[in-house]
């Protein structure tokens, strides 16, 4: 199949619609998870959801997406609740509590899955797609289920926008203003669980947490505003989700979850490097420019000092002297050329000398430093 069939092929259109929906929901809600330092909590939640899927199937015998995802949501929420209880009631730290919930719930899920696989009923197959995700199996009813669960979560985010922002940035202030921060905390946790479970079929329990963290992490680099971050994260999530899902659905032996994660990682690391203001490249250029500006200034001041020591006599000084005075910071020749361009120094046969304009400039600098 050709990735361009997305416009004509029915299956591909369903898959990309599902992946886009998933990216929008998980990117948007993930922004809050990232800011609240709950990135790893998503990992615990998604692993914890596995036994819920298996139990939902065992109890109802149904593989309807809504039933399985509700089971997943209950188990995911239970796992989160357990982490909270352990942190609150014992001295075991959050990371250990998450590690326990993640591995134990997942282990339990595997036990149930192997158990289900040995059941004599014919309809048991297909639950293992929840491990790594299989976008190609997405059907219309799956996408509808994702929308039924995900869109209300997004809507709630819009309705409680102000409260959720307060919760994420200054919970104490929110408390003093009289907002029910405790309830908001529960609501946000529940919304995060929803964001995770709707991705389980596409991305799988093992990697779903990255789908929550990564779009938000990329978006964070481009903006300092919450609204912008949520929109960007949804966009990144949708783009990566669709391209990963389509790639995986059109190529053989390319599991969906890992493919989406790799695409996402390109977006994240790209954002970290190229984003304006925060990005690594931008910062490198800025710090280099700053240090060059300081070097130029230092050379000018050195020349001024030399001229003072020679009682204002317009006498040229060789580059070697200036280099010795620069304490090995380097860039002396480049600085001299820049000063020459600004007509603050000129080159004479014996070396470099300040012009009158340069002297004025240096005096001004010296004045600035005294004040």
């Amino acid at each position, binding site marked *: 199949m050709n990735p361009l069939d997305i416009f004509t092929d029915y299956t591909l259109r369903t898959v990309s619609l599902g992946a886009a929906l998933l990216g929008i929901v998980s990117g948007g809600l993930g922004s809050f998870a990232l800011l609240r330092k709950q990135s790893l909590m998503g990992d615990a939640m998604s692993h914890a959801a596995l036994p819920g899927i298996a139990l939902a199937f065992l109890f109802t015998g149904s593989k309807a997406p809504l039933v399985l995802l509700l089971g997943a949501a209950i188990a995911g929420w239970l796992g989160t609740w357990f982490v909270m209880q352990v942190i609150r009631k014992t001295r075991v730290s959050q990371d250990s509590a998450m590690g326990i919930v993640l591995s134990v719930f997942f282990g339990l899920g595997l036990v149930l899955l192997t158990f289900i696989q040995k059941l004599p009923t014919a309809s048991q197959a297909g639950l293992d797609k929840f491990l790594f995700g299989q976008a190609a199996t997405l059907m219309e009813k799956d996408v509808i289920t994702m929308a039924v669960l995900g869109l209300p979560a997004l809507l709630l985010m819009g309705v409680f926008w102000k409260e959720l922002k307060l919760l994420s940035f200054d919970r104490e202030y929110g408390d003093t203003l009289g907002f029910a921060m405790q309830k908001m905390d529960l609501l946000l946790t529940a919304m995060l669980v929803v964001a995770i479970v709707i991705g389980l079929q596409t991305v799988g329990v093992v990697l779903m947490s990255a789908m929550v963290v*990564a779009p938000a992490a990329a978006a964070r680099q481009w903006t300092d505003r919450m609204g912008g971050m949520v929109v960007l994260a949804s966009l990144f999530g949708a783009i990566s989700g669709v391209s990963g899902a389509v790639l995986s659905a059109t190529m053989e032996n390319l599991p969906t979850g890992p493919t989406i994660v790799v695409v996402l990682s390109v977006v994240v690391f790209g954002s970290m490097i190229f984003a304006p203001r925060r990005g690594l490249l931008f910062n490198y250029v800025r710090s280099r420019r700053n240090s060059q500006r300081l070097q130029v200034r230092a050379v000018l001041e050195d020349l001024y000092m030399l001229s003072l020591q020679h009682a204002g006599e317009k006498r040229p000084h060789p580059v070697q002297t200036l280099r010795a005075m620069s304490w090995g910071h380097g860039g002396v020749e480049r600085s001299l050329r820049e000063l020459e361009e600004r007509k603050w120094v000129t080159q004479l046969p014996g070396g470099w000398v300040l012009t009158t304009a340069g002297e004025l400039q240096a005096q001004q600098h010296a004045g600035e430093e005294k004040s």
Partner: protein
Amino acid sequence: MTPQQFDIQLIASLSAVACALPGVFLVLRRMAMMSDAISHAILVGIVLAFFAVKDLSSPILLIAAAATGVLTVALVEMVSRTKLLKEDASMGIVFPVLFSIGVILISRYSGNIHLDTDSVLLGELALAPFDRLVIGGHDIGPLGAYTMGGAVLLNLAFIILFYKELKLSTFDPGLAAAIGFSPALLHYSHMALVSVTAVGAFDVVGSILVVALMVAPPASAYLLTDRLPVMILLASLFGIASAILGFWTAVVLDASIAGTMASWTGIIFLLVFLFAPDRGIVAMVLRRHRQRGDFALRMLVVHLLQHENEPNALDECRIDHLQDHFRWDQVFAGRIIKLGKRRGVLSTAGDKLVLQQDGRVLAQRAVSES
């Protein structure tokens, strides 16, 4: 018990101990999720090394995987040092990416060899006894037992050799650095051990069980003791118990051994969480109940002492007055009066409460203390 069953339990127990030893320090240093990151990320090291040497039993795989583990830790730190992402977020991105690359490589290029995505998550403990170590034509036991036994010895040697340094840098990193122990060197040695152990156990029990064995038994032990050697011992014992109980549960249910072992580490943690003598939930609830009773009794005797020789004493010391005065309900008031009688600080005469000598002493002490 067949020899195979014995071998499986032996390998599982050795894996549990090998994981518990570095796990204790992961839990104490609040880096438990590092085990999750490492146990996933090593996959890409194993796969790449396998493509290079085309031999699954080559020791190069082990070395490459362990190196990948340490590299993952360094990478997470590198990303979070840019200050563009917090540490949890950088971990939450770095290891899924490495793991994804590993999974993609396996599913695209390795065809149907031993490496497949299911065994990555689940391990192949049931097959471990058939992989024998043969030296000079003699079968001297299952290979897994030797690998994991080696891991136990390695971890044990590290802990014994650097016990003082590990202890100090775990409980007081500031002092450790001031005295001159290199925190970075210890940290990376610890991470290297976690990686090596994870690689060994990964083959046997899969990546998720590595996390369960490294975190849950030490965390359970942490709730039971304040002494490091006891914690290490308890964690190992809990690990072994999970291994053996897990094996037999798997036999009964005909389910994944790794899954049942992980479940048992969780059940043990849950039991400790509920019933630990000092820090357990039940002990905590009982303690709170007792403290509430003690406090209420002290209030009551102070109240009785206050009104003992006053004209309205008859009124104030009636049992049903307590409901107005303290807002205690009938049940609670009854409980406190019973507690007071048992301790001999008060007695009842009809519907009146009478303070005893012990009660006067208790009340006076309570008043003078405050």
